[in-house]
C-alpha cells in the first residue's frame, strides 16, 4: 500500500527581549548559573508575575508577519507539572485564547508554492536547566534557573507538510522571518529555536489522519530531516508488517540517529490547564496592532520580489540574497552605494560566502563592509585592477577591512596599462617560446591563450589582458 506522510511542527522560539517575560532579570545567554534570577523567576512564596509588554509586542509582530489574526482578548494559563527546572511547579503559558491564530506562510519547493497553515502562536515562559553530575561520578544534579522565565513563542503549524523536505523548508522560512523581525536569533544549536514534530502516515487518498507520534529534541535543521526520515521509515516498517502505530512521544537521539519511546499515551501528562489567576486577561488595542503592523520590516518574500524587479538580478540570486536579513542588508547597501547589482550578488554568492563559510562566520561578524566591495568594483571598472587581481584584493579586504585603493597601492597591484612595459613583456615571451610562436603562426590559434597567460604570469597579473591580447596578435601577424 502507498502511504502519505503528514507532518505538523511545534516550534519554540526564544524571544530577543532584554528582560524575562514576568520579571526584570536579564535574558543574556551564557552567564554563571543562577546569576540571572530573582525571587520571581525562582518561584519564591508570594511573588507575582507581571507581563513584559515587549514579549507581547514580539508575539503580535510575529503573528502579523505570518498572517495571523491577533486576538483582541487573550489570556495566560497554568500548565501544571513537577520538574526541578520548573520552579513554580507550573509553567505560565497560554491554552484557550492564545494571542495569535489562523495564520499561514508559503514555502517554495521545486519551484512550486505551498501554503502551510499556522494554527496558533502563544506566549510562555521557558524553564531552567538541570545539570546532572552523574556523568562525572556524582549522584546529584544542579538546577540553573537563568533560563527560567525567558520569553518563548510556541508556533504551532497545521499538519500540512507532506515530506521532511517540506518541514525543513518551513522551518527555514519561519526562522528567516523571525530573524528579519528581530524577535528571535534563530540559533538552533544554542536552543533559542527548538522544534517538536508530529508525524503520522495514512493510506494515500484517505482523509482521516493516522495515529500520530510526537518527536522531541530536534535541535538542528539537519536533525529535522534525519529524525523525520527515520521516523517515517520506522512507521512504514510497522505498517508493512501489518502492525499498528502507537500514539506516543519519542525522543530524537542525534548520536545514534534513532527516535526512542519516551512515554506512551497512558503516561501522557495531564497538565491540568486553568486560567492564570495572577495575570488579568489581555485586551489588545487595535491602534497598537496597527502601529506594530506599520512598523514591520520588509519581509523576505517582498524583498526578493523587489530585488528582482528593481535591481534586475536573477531569481536564484535573489533567493540567496534574502536568505538572511544580514545578507540582504549587505547586498542592498552595496547597491545603494553604486555597485552594479549583478556584480554585487556575484561577489557575495561567490567569494564572500565562500570565505565566510570557511571560517563559519556570519555577515554580521564580517570586517568586509559593502563600501569595500563598491570601492573595489570601481577600481575594476576604471581599469586600475584586473578581475584576476581583484580576487587577491578581495581576500585582503576580507582579512583586513582596508579600502581596496589602499591595498592596491600598498601591494603595488596597479594594472600595467603602459604600452611600453607591456610591449617589452610581450617581446620577451615571444622570444622565449619559439616553438609555440611557430605553431600559432602555422594556424594553431588557440595557443594565443597560452601566450597571454605567460605574459600575465611575468607581470604578476598586473598587465591589462585585452592590451596583451591585442599586442601579441599584432606582433605575431607581422
Amino acid at each position: 500500500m502507498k502511504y502519505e506522510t503528514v507532518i505538523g511542527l511545534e516550534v519554540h522560539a526564544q524571544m530577543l527581549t532584554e528582560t524575562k517575560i514576568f520579571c526584570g532579570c536579564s535574558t543574556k545567554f551564557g552567564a554563571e548559573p543562577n546569576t540571572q534570577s530573582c525571587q520571581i523567576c525562582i518561584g519564591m512564596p508570594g511573588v507575582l508575575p507581571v507581563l513584559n509588554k515587549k514579549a507581547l509586542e514580539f508575539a503580535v509582530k510575529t503573528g502579523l508577519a505570518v498572517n495571523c489574526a491577533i486576538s483582541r482578548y487573550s489570556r495566560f494559563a497554568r500548565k501544571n507539572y513537577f520538574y526541578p527546572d520548573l520552579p513554580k511547579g507550573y509553567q505560565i503559558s497560554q491554552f484557550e485564547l492564545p494571542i495569535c491564530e489562523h495564520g499561514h506562510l508559503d514555502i517554495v519547493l521545486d519551484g512550486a508554492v505551498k501554503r502551510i497553515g499556522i494554527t496558533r502562536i502563544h506566549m510562555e515562559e521557558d524553564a531552567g536547566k538541570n545539570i546532572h553530575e552523574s556523568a562525572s561520578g556524582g549522584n546529584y544534579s544542579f538546577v540553573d534557573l537563568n533560563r527560567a522565565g525567558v520569553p518563548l513563542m510556541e508556533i504551532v503549524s497545521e499538519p500540512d507538510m507532506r515530506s521532511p523536505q517540506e518541514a525543513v523548508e518551513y522551518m527555514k522560512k519561519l526562522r528567516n522571518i523571525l530573524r528579519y523581525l528581530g524577535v528571535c536569533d534563530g540559533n538552533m544549536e544554542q536552543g533559542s529555536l527548538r522544534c517538536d514534530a508530529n508525524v503520522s502516515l495514512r493510506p494515500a487518498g484517505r482523509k482521516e489522519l493516522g495515529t500520530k507520534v510526537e518527536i522531541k529534541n530536534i535541535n538542528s535543521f539537519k536533525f529535522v530531516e534525519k529524525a523525520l526520515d527515520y521516523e517515517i521509515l520506522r512507521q512504514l516498517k510497522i505498517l508493512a508488517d501489518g502492525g499498528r502505530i502507537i500514539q506516543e512521544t519519542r525522543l530524537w537521539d542525534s548520536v545514534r540517529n534513532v527516535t526512542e519511546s519516551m512515554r506512551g499515551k497512558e503516561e501522557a501528562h495531564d497538565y491540568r490547564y486553568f486560567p492564570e489567576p495572577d495575570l488579568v486577561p489581555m485586551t489588545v488595542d487595535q491602534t497598537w496592532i496597527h502601529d506594530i503592523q506599520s512598523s514591520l520590516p520588509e519581509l523576505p518574500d517582498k524583498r526578493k520580489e523587489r530585488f528582482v524587479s528593481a535591481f534586475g538580478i536573477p531569481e536564484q540570486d535573489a533567493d540567496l540574497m534574502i536568505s538572511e536579513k544580514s545578507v540582504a542588508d549587505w547586498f542592498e547597501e552595496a547597491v545603494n552605494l553604486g555597485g552594479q547589482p549583478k556584480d554585487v550578488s556575484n561577489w557575495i554568492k561567490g567569494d564572500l560566502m565562500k570565505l565566510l563559510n570557511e571560517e563559519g562566520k556570519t555577515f554580521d561578524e564580517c570586517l568586509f563592509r559593502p563600501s569595500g566591495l563598491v570601492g573595489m568594483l570601481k577600481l575594476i571598472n576604471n581599469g586600475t585592477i584586473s578581475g584576476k587581481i581583484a580576487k587577491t584584493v578581495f581576500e585582503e579586504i576580507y582579512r583586513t577591512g582596508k579600502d581596496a585603493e589602499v591595498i592596491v597601492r600598498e601591494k603595488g597591484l596597479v594594472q600595467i596599462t603602459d604600452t611600453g612595459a607591456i610591449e617589452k613583456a610581450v617581446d620577451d615571451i615571444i622570444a622565449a617560446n619559439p616553438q609555440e610562436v611557430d605553431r600559432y603562426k602555422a594556424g594553431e590559434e588557440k595557443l594565443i591563450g597560452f601566450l597571454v597567460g605567460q605574459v600575465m604570469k611575468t607581470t604578476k597579473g598586473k598587465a591589462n589582458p585585452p592590451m596583451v591580447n591585442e599586442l601579441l596578435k599584432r606582433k605575431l601577424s607581422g
Partner: protein
Amino acid sequence: MSSLHTLTISEAQKLLRGKEITAGELAESVFQRVNAVEEKVKAFITLTKETALLMADEAQKIIHVQGESGAPSFLGIPLAVKDNMCTKGVPTTCASKILRNFVPPYESTATSRLKKDGYVLVGKTNLDEFAMGSSTENSGFHTTRNPWDLTRIPGGSSGGSAAAVCADECIAALGSDTGGSVRQPAALCGVVGLKPTYGRVSRYGLVAYASSLDQIGPITKDVRDSAILLNVIAGHDPADSTSVPVPVPDFTKVLGRDIKGMKLGIPKEYFIEGMDKEVEHSVKKAIATLESLGAIPVEVSLPHTGYAVATYYVLATSEASSNLARYDGVKYGLRAGGKDLMDMYMSTRAQGFGAEIKRRIMLGTYALSSGYYEAYYKKARQVRTLIKKDFENAFQTVDIIVTPTSPTAAFKVGEKASDPLQMYLSDIFTISMNLAGVPAISVPCGFTSEGLPVGLQFIGKHFDEESVLKASYAYEQATDWRKRRPAL
C-alpha cells in the same frame, strides 16, 4: 504596668504626636503584655522584639524631628502581621513545616508600605497552615486560643492576628481573607476585620492560597483604625497585575457621617433554619439599631447563596493545588531525603504538609483533571459569575447589605477538627464576598449568654469600602460592644 497596649491606632497616634508617650514606651508596653498573656493565647509564631525596639527608636527620632504635623501615620505603631506575608529577613512560615526555615529576601507590598510609614513589627501571627481553615487548628505548629475563652478557637485562618488584637498584644494587625479568614476570626474574637475589594490591596508578597480570592485586610480594635490602616495598604501596585489602578480616597473622611436614608439590604438567604439563635438575635437587634439611626432595611435576595460553599471549595482548592506545587524541596524550605527525585518530592510533601493541605491539594487536583474540569472547575467559575451578579442585582436597590459574619460564636478546640465539612460551613456567610470580590467588614454586635462575641457583617459594592466603613462606624458608635474586654 502601663496600659499603653490597650490603645487604638488613632489614640496612640495622638499621644505620640503630642509627645505624651514615646514609641519606645508604647513598644515596651506591648511586649510586656505579650509576656503576660502570650503563653495562654499563643497568637504568635515569631516575635520580633529586638528589631521592634530598634524600629521604635528610629520612629521616635523621626517623630522628634518632625513634630506634630508632619509625622506619617504609622510612625511607632506596633502591629502584628499574619505569617503568610513576606517580611524581609523575618521568618515567614505560613504555619507550615514545609516553610519552617524560610526567611524571605523581599518584603510584601502591604508591609513595605507600613515600613515606609514607620510601623513597628511586633511579630508574625499564627494561622491555619497556608490560610486553609477556620480555627487555627490546622496550624503546623500550635492552636491559638480565643482570649474570651481559652478552651475555644479564635477562628481562622487569621486567628493569630485576631487573638493578638483582642488580647492587646499589638495595637492592630494584618490578616488575609480568602473565604472569611479576616472577618470570621474578627467576629469570634470581638474585634473589627475588613476584607477590602479584590484588587484594592496588592497581593505581592502574600503567600498565595487561592489567588483569585486572596485579599489582605486590617484587623483592628475599632472601625476608625480599620480605615486608617486601609489608607496605608490600599492602592495600585505595578508588581501585582490584579491590583486595580483606581483612586484611593481618605477612608477616615466618611466616618461620622450619618446614615439616614441609607438602604440596608437584608438577604433572606442568610437568615436560615439551623442558625444559632443567639447569633440571630444579636444580628436582628443590630439591624433595629441601624434602623433607629435612620437606615432603611429592605429585604433582598442573593439567590445563588446556597452554591457558594461548594463553588468556593472547587475554585479555591483548584488554585491551591497549583499554588502549592512550588514547595517541592528543590529550592527552599523543607527537603526530606529520598532515593530519587520522585521519592524526594513525595517524602518532602508528605512530611511538610498537614492533613488539610493534602486534602485540599487532592480536591483541587481532581477538579482540574482532564475529564472533570468541565464538570467542576469550569462549572464553578460559571456559578461564581452568577453569585457576582446576585450582588450586582441587589446593589441596584440597596446601598449596603447586612448579615451575620458567622453562623455560630467561637466553638471549642477540637469540636469540629475531625469534621471538615462542619468546619467548612463556618465560612458560609463570608465566602460569597470573596467569590464576588466585594468589600465586607465584621464588627462586634453582641455577646452570647456564654460571653462570646458575635459579629455583624456589612457588605458593599466593588471599591465602595467607604459605605461599608461609614455604616459600620455609625453602628459601632451607637453601641458599647467594643468597650468590653476579655478578662485574661
